[in-house]
Each structure stands twice: as structure tokens, then as C-alpha cells.
């Protein structure tokens, strides 16, 4: 029996925020994610001062569209990790979905059919992860690391190792705008808002916190933990599918290596930088959004500032480190007050 004993540190953005009246500045300093926000602001201001190309409408829209796919994955991951789960195979699920979507479209199937089939497959993949995690007691990270490898292979099989182009099918989703806002961004925002609402205002979402906080207690309190977990894994699967279709529409093709581990790691980095706990029980969509945007802004800034490609990874790593520390130091200060 492994009983999880979390530290008592009141989680940032957790279900409780003790606000005291008065002292606005202090309240601000105690608001969640101040550290992360500060890092983001510094990066934005520093970049804007050094290049005019940064703070333009088109560039901002650009950044937001670029992070849309990651944001959808990160949203699912936030929910799942809050419930103490982990899906390391979402990136590979994206690979499979883009591959399948591309094949279906290029074989002349209708867009509707393709969308439904792809998301269905992705959901089933998520569900299978959930079944293994729930019924075998293997740690979710381990299970999904294995399925990630497996799915990478499946994606190759579906593509038969070549690139498959979808021509101009789904072009509008990946490239057009509505009221000046790219469809992809609209989708990502919808997903994020929905996730935030679910986590905060539904019993399903609160159950996720409870399961992540102490699974035994959750089960004893009458929560159908098994069903909840299966649903959570299925939802992350479905969101991977959606992200896959978004990516496909943006790229116009699927090729070996689309999605996969690099996408997965970006999403994981965004989520954990945003303060979602690897051990479960704590997590906020706001934090994840900040994490996703920070990563997008940094990549964009490094390009615009012409940082040499050798220095880019160093810079990204450095910013990640600083952001993680800032978020944590801030949390600690809040706890001390």
C-alpha cells in the first residue's frame, strides 16, 4: 500500500486562495503565477525594445497561432496531471492522428469522415492507455512511455515511411482567420477555456483534484475513480486527436517525425513550468497558458533577435530554468506570508 503524503504547502492556484483585504500590491505579489508572469513580461519587453518586428499585430497573432497546437495538448495534460495521471504518448498520438488524417484525405475521404475517424482513433488510443494504467497498476509515465514508442511506429506504418500531402484540404482551418483571429487560435482558446471551466466549476474537475490529491480518499468518498480515470485518459486522447488535425491542417501534410517526442516535451515543459504538480493534486490552466505562451514567445524572440541557432537551445533552456525557479520561489514566498 503506498499512501501518498503530499506536503502541506498550499498549492498555487489550488482550490484555495486566502485573500485578505487591503494592500493591493501585496495582493498582487501573492497572486498565483506572479513569478512566471514576471519572466514573461521581461522577455516581452526586452525583445520589443530590441526589435520592431516583435510587437506587431501580425507577429503576436503569429506567435499565438504557433502555440495553438501545443496549447491543446497542454490543456489535456494539465487536467490529467492534476488528477495524478501522466500521458507521455500524446505527441505520438498526434503523429498517428496526422498520419491517419493525411492518408484518409489523400485517399479521397470526406473531411467530416476524416475528422471523426481521427478523433475516434485518438480517443481509443487514450482509452487504451487508461485501461492499462487503471487495471495493471503500472506507473502512468512508464505505460505511456512504452505506448509512445509503439505509436511512433504505428505512425510510420500508417504513412509507410513517406510523406503524405493533403493538398489544399483543410487549408482554411490551418490558415484562415475569423475577425482577424486564426481558426487554430480560436480552437485552442475554446479548449483552454473549456478545460479551465471544467476544472473549476464542475464536480468532474474537482474530482480530478481529489484523485490527484489522494486517490484512496477519493475512492472512499464514493468517487468512481476507475471511470473517472478512463474518462480522463480518453479526453487527453481526444485532445491529442484534435491537436493532430490542427497540426495537419497547418502543415498540409504528414511525414515521419511530425508530432512525436519534441511536441510532447514542449507540452510537458509548458505544463510543469506553469506549476502543475507531477505528483497530482495541483494544477491550473492559467499557469499552463503562461507556460505555453512563454515558450512560444521565447522561440519567436530568438528568431527575431537573430540569436544564432547554437545559442537558441541554450537560451530556451535558460529561460525554462529561470521561469521554473521564479514560479517556485514565488510560491515559497506566498506560503511564508
Amino acid at each position: 500500500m503506498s499512501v501518498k503524503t503530499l506536503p502541506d504547502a498550499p498549492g498555487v492556484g489550488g482550490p484555495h486562495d486566502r485573500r485578505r483585504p487591503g494592500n493591493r500590491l501585496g495582493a498582487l505579489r501573492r497572486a498565483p503565477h506572479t513569478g512566471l508572469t514576471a519572466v514573461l513580461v521581461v522577455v516581452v519587453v526586452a525583445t520589443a525594445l530590441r526589435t520592431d518586428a516583435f510587437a506587431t499585430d501580425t507577429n503576436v497573432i503569429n506567435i499565438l497561432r504557433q502555440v495553438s497546437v501545443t496549447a491543446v495538448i497542454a490543456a489535456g495534460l494539465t487536467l490529467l496531471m492534476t488528477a495524478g495521471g501522466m500521458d507521455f504518448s500524446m505527441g505520438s498520438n498526434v503523429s498517428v492522428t496526422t498520419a491517419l488524417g493525411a492518408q484518409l484525405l489523400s485517399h479521397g475521404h470526406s473531411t467530416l469522415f476524416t475528422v471523426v475517424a481521427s478523433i475516434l482513433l485518438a480517443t481509443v488510443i487514450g482509452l487504451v492507455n487508461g485501461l492499462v494504467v487503471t487495471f495493471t497498476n503500472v506507473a502512468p509515465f512508464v505505460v505511456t512511455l512504452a505506448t509512445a514508442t509503439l505509436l511512433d511506429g504505428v505512425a510510420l506504418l500508417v504513412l509507410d515511411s513517406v510523406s503524405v500531402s493533403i493538398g489544399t484540404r483543410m487549408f482554411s482551418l490551418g490558415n484562415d482567420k475569423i475577425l482577424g483571429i486564426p481558426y487554430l487560435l480560436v480552437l485552442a482558446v475554446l479548449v483552454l477555456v473549456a478545460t479551465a471551466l471544467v476544472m473549476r466549476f464542475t464536480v468532474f474537475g474537482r474530482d480530478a483534484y481529489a484523485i490527484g490529491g489522494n486517490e484512496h480518499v477519493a475512492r472512499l468518498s464514493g468517487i468512481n475513480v476507475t471511470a473517472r480515470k478512463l474518462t480522463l485518459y480518453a479526453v487527453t486522447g481526444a485532445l491529442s486527436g484534435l491537436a493532430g488535425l490542427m497540426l495537419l491542417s497547418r502543415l498540409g501534410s504528414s511525414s515521419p517525425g511530425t508530432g512525436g517526442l519534441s511536441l510532447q516535451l514542449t507540452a510537458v515543459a509548458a505544463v510543469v513550468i506553469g506549476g502543475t504538480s507531477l505528483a497530482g493534486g495541483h494544477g491550473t490552466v492559467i499557469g499552463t497558458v503562461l507556460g505555453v505562451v512563454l515558450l512560444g514567445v521565447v522561440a519567436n524572440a530568438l528568431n527575431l533577435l537573430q540569436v544564432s541557432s547554437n545559442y537558441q537551445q541554450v537560451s530556451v533552456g535558460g529561460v525554462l530554468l529561470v521561469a521554473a525557479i521564479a514560479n517556485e520561489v514565488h510560491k515559497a514566498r506566498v506560503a511564508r506570508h
Partner: protein
Amino acid sequence: MTPSIPTPPGDGAGTPHDAVLRVRGVTKSFGGAAALTNVDLDLYPGEVHALMGMNGAGKSTLVQILSGVHQADGGTLEVGGHVQHGLTVRRARRLGIASVPQRRELAMGLTVAENVMLGDLPTRHGAVRWRTLKSEARHALSGLGIDIDVERTAGSLTVAEQTMVEVAREVRRGGRILMLDEPTACLSAGAAQQIRDLVRTLRDEGVAVVYISHYIDEVMAVADRLTVLRDGAVVRSAPVAELDPASLVRSMVGRDVVSRRSERPAPKDEIGLAVRGLRDGRAVRDLDVEVRKGEIVAVLGPAGDAQSRLFDLLSGRRRPDTGELLVDGAPVPFGRVRASLAGGLRCVTGDRRALGLVPGMSLDENLMLAGDRFARRRLHRRTELARRAQPLRRSYGVVSLAGNPPVSALSGGNQQKVLLAKWLQTEPVACFLEDPTNGVDIAAMADIHTLVDDLASRGVAVLLASSSAEEVMRLADRVIVVSAGRTVAEHDITAITRDELVATALGGQPQ
């Protein structure tokens, strides 16, 4: 690990110069709320110094400051005549300060032997000497009359056994100061007796013992001097001989607390809860219990093991080898939590940290965690949650410093009330209570006893597993004595005295 402090030039015992530890004006606050204000305390070698006070009075905080876990905001600590600045855990250890914290914590993956010897493993040429390690650990345990296989892993121990292991570890280490934070809170009468005997032995060897407990009788029996904390301040400090229980209660609570057996309507004839032929490994063998509606039946036994096993079985966490469970006459399948709940059975754990509360969630959410599931709610709104939680908080007397803090920021007693409220608001047909007053102060204890009384008066069948004989005498209609997993005796409460009860529980033999 020998204390490195010079022995103060002592003359006669009892003079202030002799104090091994002097606390002056210690203040500590958490997030702006004061947990301790201006606390003075003197500890003398060869003396048991009890700390008493309501839940949240600051006892544990004081102990944690003395053992280096927390740093005081103000005031001075003097150990052996030397002022200590920035006392850390390791430094405290070196100074010979040992403590058993209120929260039982062991390295769960390691064996009992290693846990006893942790931080002080015997080695030869850099290699751990397993044989010595185990024999020393065995020796440390048996020296306290504790019979636990040292090769078991800590994770497999019951809370009571964990306590014993922790005490054994600290005692083995030696030192001049030993602080025990509610060591007997969930121990059976026998185990508690062992602890008290041990404390007396250590005192006679010259150790200064700090002893925290909510049981007045126990404190009166074991302590030489007593300090009462209220809202973080010392309200009274005197030799025990100068105190009487009633005034002690008044100084702790600020009023009199009456808790005596109350008259309840007679139990109905229908059986609310029946357990038949329950058998599970060595812990439970052939247990038969029937509880009528409106009746409180206590299960009493020497080891805590059967109690927590009973919780696992009745709550549906674990499937027994054989057995039958009936709630309100209808069979309830074992091994399915939700089936137990649907049948109207509510089980309140004795291990609230591991199985009772979600530490990261707020007080209110913990309070409504089960209830909202039964009500099949879909949506969650904080304002509305607070509105529903408010009356519960009031009727169960839950007190918190902040509005709706994470439940882990509450003192232990208040956490216990949250746990009871969480389950008892849900209109049970039958319930199983495991140590319902674990760690709560005397005022809260009286409140909880009243709550349980009310429960039975409403016609609920209550099965009570308690380690406290007083509690059983106060609440139960019938007592079932269990020994080695078997029912060995059954008594009507009116037909037995407290002392007989303790004796039966200890010996497992009916008189």
C-alpha cells in the same frame, strides 16, 4: 551522537540553573496568524513536563521549534545554558534533543530495523553491518516491550506500530530531552500503558520529557509539571500536584466541559448492521457482530491491527477471505467501496491523513467531498459550497484561522471534526467509526461524543472501534472483546466497570 553540551554546574535539583532547556518569549506566526505568542518554558532533567491545550493551541508548533523544524520569529532558546541561534534539525539532534512528532512518519520502503537505526546505521569498514543493525533494532524494540518483526517494511505497519517504532528510535538515540507529541493518541490501552511506563523509566534515568496529550487522566498520572497553552500563549504552568482536573479543563477551554454518559432511546429491534463469519488472514478470524438500529457496539481488542483491517473490509477497500455483510437486512458485497456506500454504510477511518482527507483541497471541499457525490451534483460553485458548508462547520465546531484554508493547515483536532462531518452529514443507516476522537482536545471530544450519541438516537447502527476505554464506557451499549482476531467475549456495558474493561482488553480474557 553524544550530546556535545557541557553539563551546567548543577547543585540541587529543581533550581532554575539546572534547566536543561529554557524557552523565553518565543513567538511564531504562520501567514500573519500567531501560533505562539511570548511563550516561556523550563525543562528540568528527570522530569516529565506535560503540554496541554485545545486543538490549535500551539503545542506541536512549540515542539517543532524546539526540535529545529520551525524557526521561531522571536524569543530565545537556551540549551544547557547556551543560547541557540537558528536551531536546525541536525543541530538539535547533536544537542541531544529527540522528538516523536505528532504526525507519524517513517521511511516506508525500509525495514523496521533500518527505521529504528536511521541516521545511525552501524558500519564496519564503510559497509553496513546488517546483523548488528537488526539485533540492535530488535534490542531497542524489545527493551520497550514491543514485539514487531524488524524485517517487516515500515509501510506494512499499523499507526500504533509506527508510533512504537518511532518512540523506540528516539529512545535508542538517547539524549537529554525527549519530546513526545500525542504518543498515545491512537494506541490501545495496553500500548499506551507501555509508553507511559517507558516515559517514567526515562525520567528516572534523568531525561527531560515533554509529553503532549489530550487525556487528563493520563497527564495527571505521568507528568510532574504541566503547562497549558491557549491560543498560543501560556496560561498556566505548575506542578501537577497543585492542579485538579476541573480547573485544568477551565484553563484550557475557558469553561467547564461535561461529558458523561447520556440517556438514549432504547435501540430498535431491527438489525442495522450485521457481520457474519468474517475471516481475513490472521487479523480477523471468525468475527460475528450484530448492531441494532440505534445501538452503539464497541469492538475492543489489544492490537490496533484488527481495527484498521475492519475499516478496510467494511469500507470495501479490501476483500476478506470469507464473510457476509448485511446493512439494514440487505446483503452488501465486499470489496466495492461504492456498494458499501450505496447500502448506507459509512466508514470513518482512524488514519485521517492517509485515508480521510485530501490535503491539497480546501476545508469546505473536503467537508462536502462525499456528500456532493451522493447528491449527484454536476456543478461546483465556491460561494454555494461555502453556504452549504457553513452550517456543518458550525454544528461540528470546526475552527480555522483563515476563511477556507487547505485542510492540511488545520490543527489535528479540527481535521478530525472535518472528517466526521464529511461522513455523518450523509444520513447513514449504519456506520463504522474507527477512533473518532483521535487527537482531539477534551472540548472537541465531548462534542464528538454528543454527535455520536445523536447519531444513535436517530436510529443509526454504530459500530465503534476505539482504543480508549473511557470512550467505550461513555458511548457503547455493548462491548465485543476481540483477541487474536476472534470474538472472545461480549458484555453489556452496564455489566462491566472501566477497570474490568481495560483488563479484558489487555488480556483478551473475560473476567
